[in-house]
């Protein structure tokens, strides 16, 4: 299962790939200690695993996927809230990726099998369309990072029908970077920031992070050449001890980002502190609707009584899931005894095996190409 997929897709420019590979080898040749770089984007990991980029890296350069899969960091109680509402008889609309994510008692897929009305949508706009046609309450279970939250905000501001509300599990990336940067076990020396999320926020937002943590950040795209070129720049910064932000993806990312989208985002949402599944309590890491938009907030419109409902929940295999450690950069899927055995994409135990952006799912499909010691 390792590289069949990557064989089918040629690199656009093998010469350039080789040039980057040689540059990295050269830069890492005389390092006294290995370098660890973290990225926080599911598409980065897909690309790295799919093209076998880890096998091109020198053994003393580790590239780790952090908490960059929005589905994977959606906390179990957030899934529980969605399942609870679905079972109360609302139409629950959500992205396909969320469908099989385990909750404490059950997943949305299991709730649907028992008769709940759960619909998969590809865009928040589709949830609005469903609400226009439906007589019943429609709840959009909204997951994803700021890039996706912008779309949810646009829907709320577009004058939706009164039977539409949003259960927001949207998350905001910059605060979690602070958390993983501070974890003593991870020892991250540089961040590869996700180009498409930075399309919204702009790259200047990372300047404060760099100041606080003394770690360079390079914003990169997710195509193989974009990633390699960003890695070369990041390793150069680390070697020189330069602490700054470099934008290696100027065709999508500007210093200020998309001002219009930011305006929509912060009009509707505010940050709140909360838990990211498996990782930690992240101050200001959740995006929740502002009180002005309580009319569209499922948490304000419905009473969600989780504690009674969860009372007798039996323990599930999920307790053995290592997703949290994997997203914190201190374990790989190979450290999980369920990987590829009890836990496979058809019957996932943890969220990282469900989403196409989860490390376990990606490594299951493409192989991890681990070289050198595990981080």
């Amino acid at each position: 299962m390792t590289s069949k997929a990557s064989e089918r897709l040629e690199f656009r420019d093998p010469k350039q790939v080789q040039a980057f590979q040689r540059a990295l080898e050269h830069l890492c040749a005389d390092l006294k200690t290995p370098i660890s770089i973290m990225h926080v984007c599911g598409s980065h990991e897909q690309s790295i695993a799919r093209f076998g980029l880890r096998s091109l890296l020198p053994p003393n350069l580790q590239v780790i996927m952090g908490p960059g899969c929005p589905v994977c960091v959606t906390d179990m109680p957030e899934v529980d809230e969605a399942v609870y509402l679905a079972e109360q008889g609302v139409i629950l609309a959500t992205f396909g990726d969320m469908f099989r994510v385990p909750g404490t008692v059950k997943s949305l897929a299991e709730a649907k099998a028992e008769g709940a009305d759960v619909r998969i949508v590809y865009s928040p706009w589709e949830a609005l369309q469903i609400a226009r046609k439906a007589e019943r309450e429609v709840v959009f279970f909204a997951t994803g990072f700021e890039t996706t939250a912008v779309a949810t905000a646009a829907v709320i501001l577009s004058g939706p029908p009164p039977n539409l509300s949003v259960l927001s599990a949207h998350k905001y990336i910059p605060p979690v970077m602070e958390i993983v940067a501070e974890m003593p076990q991870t020892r991250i020396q540089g961040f590869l920031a996700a180009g498409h999320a930075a399309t919204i926020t702009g790259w200047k937002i990372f300047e404060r992070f760099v100041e606080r943590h003394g770690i360079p950040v390079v914003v990169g795209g997710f195509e193989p050449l974009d990633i390699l070129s960003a890695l070369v720049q990041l390793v150069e910064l680390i070697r020189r001890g330069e602490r700054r932000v470099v934008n290696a993806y100027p065709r999508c990312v500007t210093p200020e980002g998309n001002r219009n989208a930011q305006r929509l985002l912060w009009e509707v949402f505010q940050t709140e502190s909360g838990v990211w599944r498996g990782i930690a309590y992240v101050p200001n890491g959740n995006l929740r609707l502002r009180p002005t938009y309580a009319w569209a907030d499922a948490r304000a419109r419905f009473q969600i009584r989780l504690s009674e409902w969860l009372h007798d929940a039996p323990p599930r295999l999920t307790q053995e899931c290592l997703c949290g450690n994997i997203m914190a950069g201190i374990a790989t899927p190979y450290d999980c005894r369920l990987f590829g055995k009890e836990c496979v994409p058809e019957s996932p135990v943890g969220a990282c095996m469900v989403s196409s952006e989860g490390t376990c799912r990606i490594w299951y499909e493409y192989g991890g190409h681990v070289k050198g010691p595990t981080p």
Partner: protein
Amino acid sequence: MCLGVPGKVLEVNDMTALVDFWGVRKQVLLHTVDSPVAPGDYVLVHVGFAIRRIPTGQIEETLAFYETLLRTAEEDLMAADVQEEMGAGEET
């Protein structure tokens, strides 16, 4: 879901645009785009919403990767994500 996909704007109608993604035509919402778009422009689309007008001169570079991906890969996570994104707009 993280992935945005580029497409070519064919028509603009107030807050929506008809966008062509390699022959698949979808209505894309413009509420979230960073600057005004016109027919002929390329936009980066995420969950059915345009999030960036791609500057002229950088279009080809952006398209090439997706083209190879869609042409050569069928059962593949990345290709599936691109196809899902292309399906996210409203049917025309």
